[in-house]
């Protein structure tokens, strides 16, 4: 009985996934175009036609022998545009809300590997280490934590001092405070606010605290020296990776191969330090 049911499910899934399989590597080659789903964010996708992820994917498209196409999306739709499913994260779980059109082949915009995302899409091999840091206005009365030498303890320490504080975040991104179970912390969102706008929102005085990816926080420190400060980490070390539809295993394998070659040749490190020149001071093994 169980085998029968399993077989039926497999047949059903197979029927369902057949049209999706068209996005896989062969289809891309046939189509002659690699569609890059991206949200302008930090130096991953600058929005000006370049960025770390843009450059990597252009190189990958070149290697595949297809054209590169950038498909702009948003944090709210980036998953559904890739997976063809509208989902709602609930902690590490998700709720499938329905279907959505697939608009691209690969997501690349500093996409953090999160548990709920893993349930919807596949991730390539991680290429960029990160963590989520709490960033405050310079005049905030919160003092940065003293590093303990242990990342987990630092997260606990950081969350502890965030109690009762309002934290600005953006839904559907890795910078959503609700994702990190800050007890006593108050998540605040602002309509229309993009990830790149978070430091500016702090400096304007609208909010006291926000979350930033470590590389982005570093850029903010460089961009606004003396105006913002890093309080501590709200996550342990994370990774960023390219999102690939679960229906494209060939593409996943092919891209991972490409990344590995890029890493081994040192090219990946060059590209990363090109867009994040100081990242190696924090993550010496980045790109390796």
């Amino acid at each position, binding site marked *: 009985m169980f085998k029968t049911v399993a077989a039926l499910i497999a047949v059903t899934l197979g029927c369902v996934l057949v049209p999706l399989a068209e996005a896989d590597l062969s289809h891309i080659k046939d189509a002659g175009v690699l569609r890059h789903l991206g949200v302008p964010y930090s130096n991953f996708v600058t929005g000006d036609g370049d960025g770390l992820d843009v450059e990597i994917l252009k190189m990958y498209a070149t290697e595949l022998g297809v054209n590169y196409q950038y498909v702009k999306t948003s944090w709210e739709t980036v998953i559904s545009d890739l997976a063809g499913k509208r989902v709602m994260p609930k902690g590490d779980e998700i709720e499938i809300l329905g279907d959505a059109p697939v608009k691209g082949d690969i997501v690349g915009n500093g996409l953090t590997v999160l548990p709920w995302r893993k349930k919807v899409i596949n991730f390539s091999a991680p290429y960029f280490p990160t963590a989520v840091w709490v960033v405050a206005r310079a005049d905030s009365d919160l003092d940065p934590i003293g590093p303990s030498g242990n990342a987990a303890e630092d997260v606990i320490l950081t969350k502890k001092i965030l109690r009762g504080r309002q934290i600005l975040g953006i839904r559907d991104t890795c910078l959503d405070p609700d994702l990190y179970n800050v007890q006593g912390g108050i998540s605040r969102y602002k309509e229309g606010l993009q990830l790149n706008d978070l430091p500016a929102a702090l400096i304007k005085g609208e909010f006291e605290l926000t979350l930033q990816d470590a590389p982005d926080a*570093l850029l903010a*420190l460089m961009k606004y020296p003396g105006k913002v400060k890093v309080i*501590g980490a709200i996550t342990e070390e994370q990774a960023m990776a390219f999102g690939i539809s679960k229906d494209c295993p060939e593409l996943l394998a092919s891209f991972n191969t490409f990344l590995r070659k890029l890493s081994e040749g040192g090219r990946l490190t060059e590209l990363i330090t090109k867009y994040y020149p100081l990242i190696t001071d924090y993550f010496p093994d980045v790109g390796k």
Partner: protein
Amino acid sequence: MALPETPLKKEKRNFQRSYWIFLLVLVVLSCFLTYLLIRVYRASNLLAEASRQSFSQESRMKISILGEYFQQRIVDIEALSSSRALHAYYQNKSLGMSLEYGLAVALAEMRAEFERFQGNALLKKRPVFEEIAFVDAREMRVIAATKPFSELKLMDTNYLESALQRSERVPVFEVSRTDSVLGVVVVRAYSYKDKVTGYLLMKLDLGTLWDQIEHDVPQNNDFDGIVDPSGILLMGPPKLVGKNVGKVTGVGGLPSALGETGVIESHDHLPALGGESLLISGGNIPYTTFTFLNVVPSSRYLAGYSPFLWVLVFSGLVVGIVIIVVILFRSALVQVRMFRQLEEARDTLDTRVRERTAELAETNQHLKAEISERKRTAQALEESEKKYRELIDNAIESIVVANEGKFKFVNPNTLELFGFSIQDLTSRPFEFFVYPEDREIAAKCYLETIDAEGENRSCEFRILNSSGIPKWVYVNAVGIKWDGKPSALGFLTDVTERKRAMEVVRRSEEKYRSLVDNAPIGIILIDTKGQILEVNRALLDILGSPSAEDTKSINLFSFPTLVAAGIPEIFSRCIETGQVATAEFPYRSKWGRPSHLRIVSTPLRDPSSMVYGCQAVVEDVTEQKRAQELLLETERIKGVADLAGGVAHNFNNLLQVVMGRAQLALNDLKNRYTERINSHLQQIVETSRMGADTVKRLQNFSRLRSDQALVVGKVFDLSHTVEHALAMTEPWWKSKPARDGIRIVVSKNIKIGCLLNGKENEIFEVIVNLIKNAVEAMPTGGDMDIRVSEKGEEVILQVQDSGTGISQSDLKRIFDPFWTSKGPGGTGMGLASSKGIVTDHGGEMSVISSLGCGSTFTITFPRANGLIEWAANNPNIQSFLHLKVLVIDDSEQIVDFLQQTLEEHCSTVLTATSGPEGIELFKRNPVDVVICDLGMTEINGIAVSSEIQAICRERSIRKPVFLLLTGWADQIAEEQNLFESGIDRVLGKPVTINELTHVLRELAIQK
């Protein structure tokens, strides 16, 4: 006579000439050689000095380049220390950020900034900085650098800390030593919020530094380099780097011994540098503590040949010249000695020849001199005779020689004097030519002369010329021998004209002496010392002197009687000023004769116009003065008489009023109309006062003037005087003319308050005179205008009439005494007297007139300034209510009268009827004024005054004004002890109320 030159002498001279020429050439050559040597020596020294300068200049240029290099490095480090990354690091750190969470990015930025800076700071495409690092001051470790920390070679660990502590906030250059490798690091302290938080270190690539200096290809052992303050060579030849240059060069104290780009020499021939002496230049490199050195062998800049060599050359030259000169001198001496022996032999021979020749020449000279002397004597005699002949012939005197009674010689002028020919004069006895009456004198003179040879005789007598006209001659004769016979040499001068002039003078003197002696006025001559030279008889009569000798015995300037009369003053003035002086004096002579003298003194001058004395005409005007005074009195009496008619007329009018009012008062008495009676009585009193004033004015006018009166003159208002004069003379210009049908219109423009100081009654007399003259000048009527005005410090009185006027010829004389145009009726003293009065008051009087156009008499007086005195005289002045008065009199009636009178004007009036009572009263109640009778029974008024004065002195209070009342005011006033007794004024009894109030008013103003 010069001897012919011998061959020997010629040879000697040639030798000497050759010798001196050779010596001269030798000296010139020596000088030229010396000059050349000096020039060469100087040129070599200049070259050497130029080389040294060039060497020093090269060092300075390299130091300048190095200075610019180090300056640029300071600029670099300053630029880098202000980079944003450094600031951001400490800013983030101050925010509490940790390296793990964000702070490391700032370090990464810092490192990136350093790398960018290093990459940009290039010199000739080579990085200037080998390493750049930042040391955190608190941690004292490198936190950012362009190299991994382990590879850094900035400074060794031990040195780093002390070097950083030395470094201040300005960039400094430090020497780094890592593994014995020397380097240069520029260090700058970095401050965040005014606190040193770190140090920026930039290690220089010395290769780029060394490239800044162009290096010559090393020659021998020369080199250049940079040393630190301790003398360690930081840059230079590799074998010497790290060594002490002082030891290397042998110059102790390097580099400080160099000073500012100096040059020094080292004479230590050190094997390390090739064993040569060295020349070292260099100096401090700006902005650093380092010194640049340039070391070369001294031989390259050798200062020509050594001075010792030059001394040798010069010495050799001098010795050579001296030896040559000595040799020449010695040979010359031998030659000269030989020549001298030959010359001595020849000179001996020459001497003998010359001696013989000289003897012959001397003899010949004597002969020539004798001949010449004889010739000169003869010529002199001839010239002397010629001179004397010309002298005699041209003499202006007549010169004659006579013996045996005849002229033996006469000169041409004698012929002219006598008018006879020479034959006539010499053929006849000279008595023939003498005026018969004078022949005896002439013969006597002739005989005396010929008897006394050599003695002078003189005489005067007359001669007769060929026309028979006698001429006076003055003869000066001397006895001489002429042709061996006693003779008379006579010089005759024609003195006829002089004789005639002397006669004229004598007669003139006799005439004038007669005039002086018989003159009716006295004449006196004195010298400048006052000694009387001459007096005439009239003067003796005037002075009453017994004789001229007695008068001459006195000195005019010191004779007491004359001095007392002031007479010497006029003579002194005449002598001092050289001008004619005139004056009149009352005089009582030594011999007791009183007189009044008028003296006119005229200066006596010598031909050079110097005054040597004066002569005076002295006139006894005693009688004239007396007549003049009588005339004035007559004139005044006449005026009084004239006025009396008018006064009588006025008086009748006043009496009419008095009588009428008295009659009315009597009538009203019956009806007891007391108010009306009072009014009538007041009118009677006022009218009587007017009558009394009129009489008083007439009395004043008629009173004789005296000079003493003017001294006690007072200040008065001329306008009042003029008004009074017009009132007094009203009968002349109004009543009398009206009676005769003649109309004289009088207009007046009189300014009130024109004050004069003087005697009012005399001025009154002047005004009356002018009014009278004006009325008399208008027999048929006319206009008379009287004006009184002020102009500056002058008061002007003008009386103008439209009468007959005065001719221009009369105008000059109208002020002369006794001159009158009124015929026998006039005395001629009116205007003269008026002018005298005006002059006595310091004024001037003038007249403008012409016939038919009337006359204007103008008198100007100096304005008086005595306002107080005038105010005291002015009845309109304010009251004197504030005065306290004490009245002392032994007559109760007088005391009552004075009390009632004074109480109307004064604040307090105290009374006493005896002296002691008055004194006691004063002790209790000091007053301002005491009015006291003189004659009282117990003590008189003078004693009361003395007592009150003593009281005031004792109490140190102000003495009251003391008025003494007496019936003998005139006599008392002359006593001199009044003032000493404290009496201020004497009032004659009976005193009127007006007089008393007048005095009190004056006192009130003064108080």
